[in-house]
């Protein structure tokens, strides 16, 4: 019967399908691929979300000081367009000098943010520019984790790649500079750095012009993003030199380096801030020298294959004499005429760490430029601190083009990270990569005891395998816990908003900074000029929108010294300085009431030092008593009468914060102030924020007769 047969056929088909669904198994390769995609997707989300603590706790706001300048520049770019941005002369900073912004910044960050903003707006998703700026760094951190996966895959294998990706996603050394709100160059520079290195390794491995060109374009992005591009342009020639010396010269290396150098140098000169430095400054001479040496080496190798040995000996001597003579004279002439400029102070301080303290106090005063402590290494890298040496061992065991590069990268980064705390940022990604290699190699070899394949004879008992795998897993779990804790507690503070816990467990928010800047924006004339220490310049420009005298760019040491001299002199002596600089308002940060330790009184000695570097009459010893820095009644007269002291403690003696302490007790210095009943002659108090963090004073204009009254 036909109907019956059809029903049977259908039932049989259904049975087959249900069997297929129940017995569904991916092939091993597809299984692995799917798992990899899933893991990478989770890592992408993890990297982004673990940086959102400050947005959840406070709000979506730009942090710190430098990001405010980047934010203001991005706003200018978005509203005024590309050409106006590149030609921007900012007359509201460094009064009366102004600043040529277009030619003195690395525009990559602003371009990236503006591009994202315009792209989203083109899709009719009107995301505010502030939110784009706040969330750009976490998004780039996710991308960096992906690049780290591919990089480690090139160097070792994909299993190490996955570990490297998850390490990079949460390592504190990197999250410290890329949390949401930290809109700074490093956020995109680390992505560009790893991308350039990935493309470089691919270029050396394949010797193809396509990868070399891509590497040069990634290098161009890096140059536009951060001054640390000098690291790339010195590490790659160092790598080529090591390859030549160890006898690993190959034509692939030649093609890769020649193309990357020529294209890279031309591309890097497109950024106005870099200008002609790639052919003039000492920091780039290593790359040029290596280029010459590589050409010479390649010519010699080629000619040797075409000549008999004794002919070749004669040719070699002739060529070397000619080359040495020619380049020697060129180099000596260039050095003597000063065409090749010596190493700039910032980078010279990396080679000679004691240089900055004695010669350039501004560089020495930045807390990020101090040498790194052991505690910082562990805090910022946790298990990577001891996985790095293990990874070095594994790389030495398997020496090829890619692992030699990673070795050199690690060793140079470790040196620089030891010189300056800020450069742990450069060490963190490669520590993740090489630590992942160590962990992955260990896990791979011991998993073989746990689950031996047919080829292995399981000589070792399973317990050893389980033990080691368990120990490594425990370490990785601790790493995850530590990194999340560090990001949440130490690196998610917006600095512009402070929070503290009261004794009853309530949280109080100190929003004084923004209140102070907003007061300036609403209550002062448009062209008012504000004098403050250079730390707050960018924030005042961005939030208060008023003209400032000095800001964080610190390009003019003498101008800063003027401001320092004004703060270090008495009110009477500071007044002519303030008049000559056309100052209308003075802004001072005071932490004595709240216990905020980064206030201007704590920075005061640096003001004296910088002022003293330009005016020898100001001596640091005058402001200390017996070598000690004090603010109580035993403080020196110069200290008690200085403008900074006056403005910080004006009317502070009328406050009694706690029952047990006297009136005028400074919580930060833990002392009662030495000069009470301060009265102002040439200034008047304009604004003090609710917790006395921001104090703004108005400079009185000279009267007509017999002034001051």
């Amino acid at each position: 019967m036909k109907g019956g047969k059809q029903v049977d056929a259908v039932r049989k088909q259904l049975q087959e399908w249900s069997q297929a669904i129940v017995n569904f198994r991916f092939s091993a390769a597809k299984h692995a691929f799917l798992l990899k995609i899933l893991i990478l997707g989770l890592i992408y989300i993890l990297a982004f979300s673990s940086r959102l603590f400050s947005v959840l706790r406070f709000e979506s706001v730009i942090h710190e000081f430098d990001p405010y300048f980047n934010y203001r520049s991005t706003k200018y770019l978005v509203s005024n367009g590309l050409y106006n941005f590149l030609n921007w002369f900012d007359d509201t900073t460094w009064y009366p000098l102004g600043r040529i912004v277009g030619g003195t910044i690395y525009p990559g960050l602003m371009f990236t943010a503006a591009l994202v903003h315009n792209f989203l707006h083109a899709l009719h998703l009107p995301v505010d520019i502030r939110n784009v700026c706040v969330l750009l760094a976490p998004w780039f951190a996710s991308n960096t984790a992906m690049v780290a996966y591919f990089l480690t895959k090139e160097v070792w294998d994909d299993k190490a790649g996955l570990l490297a990706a998850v390490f990079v996603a949460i390592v504190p050394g990197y999250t410290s500079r890329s949390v949401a709100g930290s809109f700074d160059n490093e956020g995109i520079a680390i992505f560009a750095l790893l991308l350039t290195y990935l493309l470089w390794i691919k270029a050396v491995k394949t010797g193809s012009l396509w990868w070399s060109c891509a590497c040069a374009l990634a290098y161009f992005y890096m140059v536009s993003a951060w001054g640390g591009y000098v690291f790339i342009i010195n590490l790659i020639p160092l790598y080529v030199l090591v390859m030549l010396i160890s006898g690993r010269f190959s034509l692939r290396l030649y093609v890769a380096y020649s193309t990357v150098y020529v294209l890279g140098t031309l591309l890097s000169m497109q950024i106005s801030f870099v200008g002609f430095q790639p052919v003039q400054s000492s920091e780039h001479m290593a790359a040029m020298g290596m280029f010459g040496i590589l050409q010479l080496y390649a010519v010699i190798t080629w000619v040797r294959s075409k000549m008999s040995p004794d002919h070749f000996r004669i040719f070699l001597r002739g060529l070397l004499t000619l080359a040495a003579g020619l380049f020697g004279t060129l180099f000596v002439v260039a050095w003597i005429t000063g065409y090749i400029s010596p190493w700039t102070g910032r980078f010279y301080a990396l080679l000679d760490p004691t240089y900055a303290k004695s010669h350039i106090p501004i560089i020495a005063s930045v807390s990020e430029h101090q040498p790194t402590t052991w505690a910082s290494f562990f805090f910022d890298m946790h298990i990577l601190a001891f996985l790095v040496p293990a990874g070095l061992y594994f790389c030495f065991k398997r020496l090829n083009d890619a692992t030699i590069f990673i070795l050199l990268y690690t060793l140079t980064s470790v040196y620089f990270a030891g010189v300056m705390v800020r450069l742990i940022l450069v060490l963190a990604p490669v520590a993740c990569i090489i630590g992942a290699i160590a962990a992955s190699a260990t896990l791979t070899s011991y998993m073989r005891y746990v689950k031996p394949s047919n080829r292995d004879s399981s000589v070792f008992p399973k317990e050893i395998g389980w033990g080691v795998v368990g120990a490594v897993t425990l370490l990785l779990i601790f790493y995850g816990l530590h990194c999340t804790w560090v990001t949440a507690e130490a690196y998610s503070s917006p600095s512009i908003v402070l929070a503290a816990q009261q004794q009853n467990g309530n949280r109080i928010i100190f929003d004084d900074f923004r209140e102070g800047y907003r007061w300036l924006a609403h209550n002062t004339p448009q062209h008012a000029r504000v004098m403050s220490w250079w730390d707050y310049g960018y924030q005042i420009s961005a939030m208060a929108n008023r003209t400032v005298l000095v800001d964080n760019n610190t390009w003019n040491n003498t101008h800063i010294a003027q401001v320092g001299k004004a703060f270090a002199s008495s009110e009477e002596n500071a007044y002519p300085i303030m008049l000559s600089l056309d100052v209308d308002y003075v802004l001072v940060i005071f932490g004595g009431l709240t216990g905020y330790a980064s206030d201007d009184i704590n920075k005061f000695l640096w003001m004296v030092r910088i002022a003293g570097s330009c005016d020898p009459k100001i001596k640091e010893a005058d402001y200390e008593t017996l070598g000690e820095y004090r603010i109580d009644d035993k403080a020196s007269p110069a200290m008690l009468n200085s403008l900074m002291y006056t403005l910080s403690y004006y009317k502070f003696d009328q406050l009694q914060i706690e029952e047990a302490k006297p009136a005028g007790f400074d919580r930060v210095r833990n002392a009662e102030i030495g000069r009470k009943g301060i009265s102002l002659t040439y200034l008047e108090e304009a604004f003090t924020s609710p917790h006395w963090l921001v104090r703004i004073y108005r400079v009185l204009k000279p009267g007509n007769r017999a002034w001051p009254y």
Partner: protein
Amino acid sequence: MIRRIKSSDMVRVLSAFLSTYRAETTKDLLIIDAFLVFAAFTGVVVAAYCALVTTFPYNSFLSAFASCVGVFILTLCLRLQLKTEVFKITPERAFVDYLLCNLVLHLFVINFMG
């Protein structure tokens, strides 16, 4: 044994080298080599002008010199990729890469010329 090199020695070595070279190279590689010599010659002329006459628009000099050096290096790399077996690249792919690199190079040369 180190003895002074006479110029006649050098001439002998170079002429032997040239005859080996001419015997071994095929027609298409000879064309590439001629182009290389041309690019090198142009670079020398540009540098000589800069050194002897004026460096004045310095960015223009740099872009012209970079163009000569860049084209030289890229063509040399193309030649290596076509001739040597170290690279696992088909000639068509090598040529397309070469064109792409030249495009990027000349785009920025024109931008930098000013």
